[in-house]
């Protein structure tokens, strides 16, 4: 892979993570357990959506500036291929609405369904803790655009982590029912956390250049934060070490298809529709 492809891959995966979690949290809109938390979650969803936009804009800019020979094979989705063949330049919306599931690079954790409040909190907590350390490191990236996005995102991630950590403690250390739900959500989602730290070719290439984050260096900090919150919440940290993976390479669970159906329906059926 060429260097420009590594950077595009990296930018897209961060954007996809943000889009898919933003969409998932947005599903709570109008269904929150209490009005105040309905608003809190949609605020958070919009933080993720804001980051999605910045990253897709940056990804589109990178793609448009690539030499023509590099552009082939980057995306496999037919709808996007057709657009590229007309030599139109891509924008943020094309990347969100015209890629098929196998072009999405988000981690599997984030496409897992909301199920119940505890499940939603556990998923956010694992990811918020990752984001917090990840963006603190990416802030120092040699790539100015990524560093600027990281700086803004770190402030948001700091609040997200505080919010989801408190909910883990509230539910874990709450009633018998809330504890049981929190513990089983943690147990079921645990196998999706390993993927956050898998380093592939893209990670290695960009970490060497000081652009990407050295994931191995933030893993112990993430683990320490997770276990200390779990201790306070009377939640057992799962010990199983077998981990799911595939999202970064475009191999997803069935859930992603349903998310994309919701998300992309309008633009696929009425291309270019605005309102």
């Amino acid at each position, binding site marked *: 892979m060429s260097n420009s492809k590594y950077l595009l891959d990296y930018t897209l995966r961060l954007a996809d993570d943000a889009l898919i979690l933003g969409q998932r949290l947005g599903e709570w809109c109008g269904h929150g357990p*209490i*009005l*105040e*938390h309905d*608003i*809190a979650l949609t*605020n958070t969803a919009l933080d993720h959506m804001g980051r999605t936009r910045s990253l897709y804009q940056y990804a589109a800019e990178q793609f448009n500036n690539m030499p023509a020979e590099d552009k082939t094979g980057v995306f496999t989705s037919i709808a996007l291929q057709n657009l590229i063949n007309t030599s139109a330049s891509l924008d943020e919306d094309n990347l969100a609405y015209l890629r098929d599931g196998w072009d999405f690079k988000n981690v599997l954790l984030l496409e897992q369904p909301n199920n119940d409040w505890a499940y939603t909190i556990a998923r956010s907590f694992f990811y918020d803790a990752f984001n917090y350390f990840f963006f603190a490191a990416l802030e120092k990236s040699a790539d100015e655009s990524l560093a600027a996005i990281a700086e803004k995102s770190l402030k948001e991630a700091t609040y997200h982590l*505080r*919010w989801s950590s*408190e909910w883990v403690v*509230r539910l874990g250390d709450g009633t018998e029912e809330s504890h049981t739900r929190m513990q089983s959500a943690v147990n079921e989602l645990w196998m999706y956390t390993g993927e956050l730290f898998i380093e592939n070719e893209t990670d290695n290439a960009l970490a060497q250049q000081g652009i990407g984050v050295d994931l191995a260096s933030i893993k112990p900090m993430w683990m320490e934060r997770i276990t200390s919150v779990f201790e306070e919440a009377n939640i057992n940290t799962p010990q199983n070490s077998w981990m799911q993976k595939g999202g970064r390479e475009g191999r997803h669970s069935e859930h992603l298809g349903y998310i994309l159906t919701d998300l992309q329906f309008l633009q696929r059926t009425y291309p270019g529709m605005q309102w």
Partner: protein
Amino acid sequence: MPAKQQKRTRIVYIIMAQQEITKKSEWPLWEVFIRSKAGLDHKHAGSLHAADAQMAIENARDVYTRRMEGVSIWVVESKNIHASDPSEANSLYDPANDKIYRHPTFYNLPDEVKYM
């Protein structure tokens, strides 16, 4: 039904409805005060439900400051606010109506005093 009794019945219904709501949500009500960037004092912004003070501050952040309204938040549980009785308004406030001499409008200020 005489008007007075009708009014009383309605009030009873309102109180019952409020108690029903409180019972259902179980989280106490909090009053929220926000200080804006330019403001010196915290102003009453509204109320919300929360399980404790920390959650109340966070809920207030999400409900009342998401459009950049504030830089500081106070919350106080609504039950801790004691209010004057509206039915005593006559005796509490009317006596001040005819005491215009309590306004400092009867003094001649020296010209040197600029800001009064």
